[in-house]
């Protein structure tokens, strides 16, 4: 039987990308700085986020969405810092997508939130394909995981904007090669900004707070350029 070709040219994740774009516009309009967090399981995302929320909550309004396959444990932990925490249980799905984020935001007043963090499911592969509408994506790498993680998962490191090296208090015990880790990050995402932190001791956290405050201030500056169009 003969066949004919039909041209299609359709991005498979178009639906997700369109929704993510709508979310991003909404976040910008409401003045909320939205940061996505990705990492492998056990790299300290929740501990880092706990410190981040507690620190920023001193002078800002903070909220978080946390994705996990199951359990409400992470949300319960984070609620010690702010009541505005929602858990997204993905069931068997290994990543968050824009639709899950949109649904989880229902009835939240974004204009009353300065910083919203979206903690993805612990996974260094799948989340890289899904835009969630976040302004910035942080990829976390713990000192105990080894310095070659960026080389093994280049796609997710490249799709992120900032790298956070966590558990720096354990770096010496784990014989973590920090210069190599930084070299590897720079190899997969040249020029990427890197922070070294320990959520346990609080080491390096202030630099992250300062960075986020600067981001928020920049986002809320009157858009001079935009009026020209």
């Amino acid at each position: 039987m003969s066949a004919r070709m039909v041209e299609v040219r359709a991005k498979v994740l178009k639906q997700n990308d369109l929704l993510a774009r709508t979310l991003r516009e909404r976040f910008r309009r409401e003045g909320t700085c939205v940061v996505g967090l990705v990492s492998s399981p056990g790299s300290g995302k929740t501990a880092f986020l706990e410190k981040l929320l507690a620190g920023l909550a001193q002078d800002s309004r903070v909220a978080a969405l946390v994705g996990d396959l199951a359990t409400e444990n992470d949300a319960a932990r984070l609620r010690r810092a702010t009541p505005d925490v929602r858990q997204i249980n993905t069931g068997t799905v290994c990543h968050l997508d824009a639709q899950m984020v949109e649904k989880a935001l229902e009835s939240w007043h974004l204009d009353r939130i300065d910083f919203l963090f979206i903690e993805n499911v612990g996974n260094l592969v799948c989340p890289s394909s899904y835009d969630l509408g976040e302004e910035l994506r942080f990829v976390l790498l713990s000192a105990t995981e080894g310095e070659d993680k960026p080389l093994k998962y280049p796609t997710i490191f490249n799709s992120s904007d900032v790298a956070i090296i966590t558990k720096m208090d354990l770096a010496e015990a784990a014989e973590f090669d920090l210069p190599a880790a930084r070299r590897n990050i720079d190899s997969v995402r040249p020029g990427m900004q890197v922070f070294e932190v320990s959520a346990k001791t609080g080491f390096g956290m202030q630099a992250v707070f300062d960075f986020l405050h600067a981001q928020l201030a920049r986002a809320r500056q009157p858009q001079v350029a935009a009026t020209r169009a």
Partner: protein
Amino acid sequence: MHELSIAISMIDQITEESESRGGLDVEAVHLKLGAFSGVDKEALLFAYELACEGSLLEGSRLVIETIPLVIYCDACQKNRVPPSLYQLSCPECGSPGQKIVSGREIEVTSLEVAA
């Protein structure tokens, strides 16, 4: 393993496309898949077959064309293929490559339909 989610998105999209054209008997789907898309080719082929069961696309073939990672070298002012997926630098001058030209695609390009 998000290849199953990708396959389901593909099937939804093609089903919609088919309906808008009055129903197509799809024999094969051609897909461009970037080497830097984060999607594994073999896993996608496997997931596609599973996801197609009971759908309009049951029994269709998935034909995947892999698109290499290409970066733009500011120093050479040329598109270059980096030495590997984990070393985003120019193979000629060694400059770091900040801009990805191609290699992230997950795109259905055409359908082969029974005439």
